[in-house]
């Protein structure tokens, strides 16, 4: 069973009074441990697809299933629980909480889930992303690459089944970006976590197991590397 599946999904947005079709009949399946990239121009529907995949939004038609559970019609509490247990997020602009230390940022999903053993787990995840010893720093004391590593550690801290990454290297220079991509590739392989990444990066596409090319809300091709 795929960890994520989208079946003939459509989604419209209201833009200045005009309906814009952001996704148009998208069907996609992501298996456990797969590294999938979504590539295409800006506005082709990559971020919309990630929003639906993370249960942040609902499709107009079709069905999104996360670990076999359809998000359609699920109450907010159930969607929250799915995000808390099965999905990790990585954003282009890191989205760290700048008033919290690195440890506290990484612990956040565990505390939101009501788990008390957060500090040790956070320390372990920081070791995974090679940031041991930086746990007490505040985000503004870190470089861009380090901040994105913190975000990756945070996305992994609750052992999700799939990580959704929206342009995770978009704010990084190419060298740092490549390091982050390599790290993500290694972690998905080692930890068996699926990764669905929206990206413009050709390097990311080269590293992925599957490259999904999108245009005008539709999937053009699905390429297996």
């Amino acid at each position, binding site marked *: 069973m795929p960890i994520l599946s989208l079946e003939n999904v459509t989604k419209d947005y209201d833009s200045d009074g005009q309906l814009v079709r952001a996704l148009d009949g998208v069907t996609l399946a992501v298996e456990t441990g797969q590294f999938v990239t979504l590539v295409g121009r800006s506005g082709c529907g990559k971020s919309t697809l990630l929003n639906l995949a*993370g249960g*942040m939004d609902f499709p107009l038609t079709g069905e999104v299933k996360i670990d076999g559970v359809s998000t359609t019609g699920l109450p*907010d*509490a159930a969607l*929250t*629980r799915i*995000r*808390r*247990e099965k999905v990790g*997020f990585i954003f282009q602009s890191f*989205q760290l*909480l700048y*008033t*919290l230390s690195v440890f*506290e940022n990484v612990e*956040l*999903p*565990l*505390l*939101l*889930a*009501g*788990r*008390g053993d*957060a500090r040790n787990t956070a320390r372990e995840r920081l070791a995974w992303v090679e940031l041991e010893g930086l746990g007490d720093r505040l985000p503004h004391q870190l470089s861009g690459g380090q901040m994105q590593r913190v975000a990756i550690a*945070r996305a992994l801290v*609750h052992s999700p089944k799939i990580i959704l990454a929206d342009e995770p290297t978009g704010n990084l220079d190419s060298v740092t970006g490549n390091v982050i991509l390599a790290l993500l590739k290694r972690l998905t392989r080692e930890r068996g976590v699926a990764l669905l990444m929206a990206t413009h990066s050709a390097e990311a596409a080269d590293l992925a197991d599957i490259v999904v090319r999108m245009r005008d809300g539709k999937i053009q091709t699905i390429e297996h590397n």
Partner: protein
Amino acid sequence: MAALRLFYRFMVRPFFREPVRTAVTILGIALGVAVVLAIDLAGDAATGSFRSSVETLSGDNNLEIRASGGLPESLVGTVAQLPYALRISPRIEDYAVVQDTKQTLPLIGLDLVGETAGYADRMSGDGTPAVNFMEGCAHADLNPAKDHDQSSKTPFDCLADPASVWVGSSLGRKPGEHLTLLLNDREGDYIVRGIYPDLNGAESAIVMDIASAQRAVGRAGRVDRILLKSPPSPNIDEWEQRLAAALPAGVEVRAQGAGTNENRQMLTAFRWNLRLLSYISLVVGGFLIYNTISVSVVRRRSEIGIVRALGGSRGLVLSAFLLESATLGLAGTLAALPLGRLMAGGTVKLMGLTVQALYVSSRPASIELSPTSIAL
């Protein structure tokens, strides 16, 4: 535990990170709550001692005759000639200022000569004590400065002496002491002839013979009220009707104490007015909380989004902000308790003056911070 850590990190830490903003908010709330508390406490204190001082020595009378602007003294005779077994007690009621303490006290003129035995005998159902005015005059030194022929004076002359007054025990005076009183802008020297026990904690009144009181307040030939004690049968309504029929137009007969109840109702309305006005400051405090939380929500919009994406529920976010409001409110209220008590000290005097000027004579009681006030 995890929730507490989250609350501390997201809600409590910002309080310390922005101490000025936090302090201003708490101060605003504290001021709002303190004003309400102060008005409430001061209202209690300013009117709490109101025990109908004009009803002092009204005894067991059950009816009163009154009219706007007072009654002609001849009406006492009219009532006395009615074919009913009524006890009649005409009264002069005004206020006197004790010059050395600047206390304003009710001045009551009673027919001491005609009724002194009655006051000594009666003990009303409401606990009004018997008062023997004659006792203070039995061996009185009758105003020796004015009167050289003491041997010709009787105790009744003492009762009717324009300088004789009786005061309540709470005034702390002794028989024989001289009092300088200001009555209707005229200062006079008076001698305390006797002390009567105050009624259930009511403030003292200055009592003098009705004729002396009429002269002192410049109402010769007038009385303010006539109190009556009617026989138990028929009922009081019937007595009201019978008497009303015998009295001229514009003169009202009503149950004795009805004026006190009216005063009580007016005081209650007055207190509610003040209370409602004070709630405006509470609304300001509430608005400050609303404003602080609104700004907090707007500023943390991205934080809220991140928390929601990472698994925070809507309820959790809502609870956090509600708890933040409650924390600010609690801190403000705690600060308001001593502040309100302090402000009440200043307010009670002003409120007491207003109550005295507009409604009735009252003596401010002590300010008590009761659990009810705190709960309010």
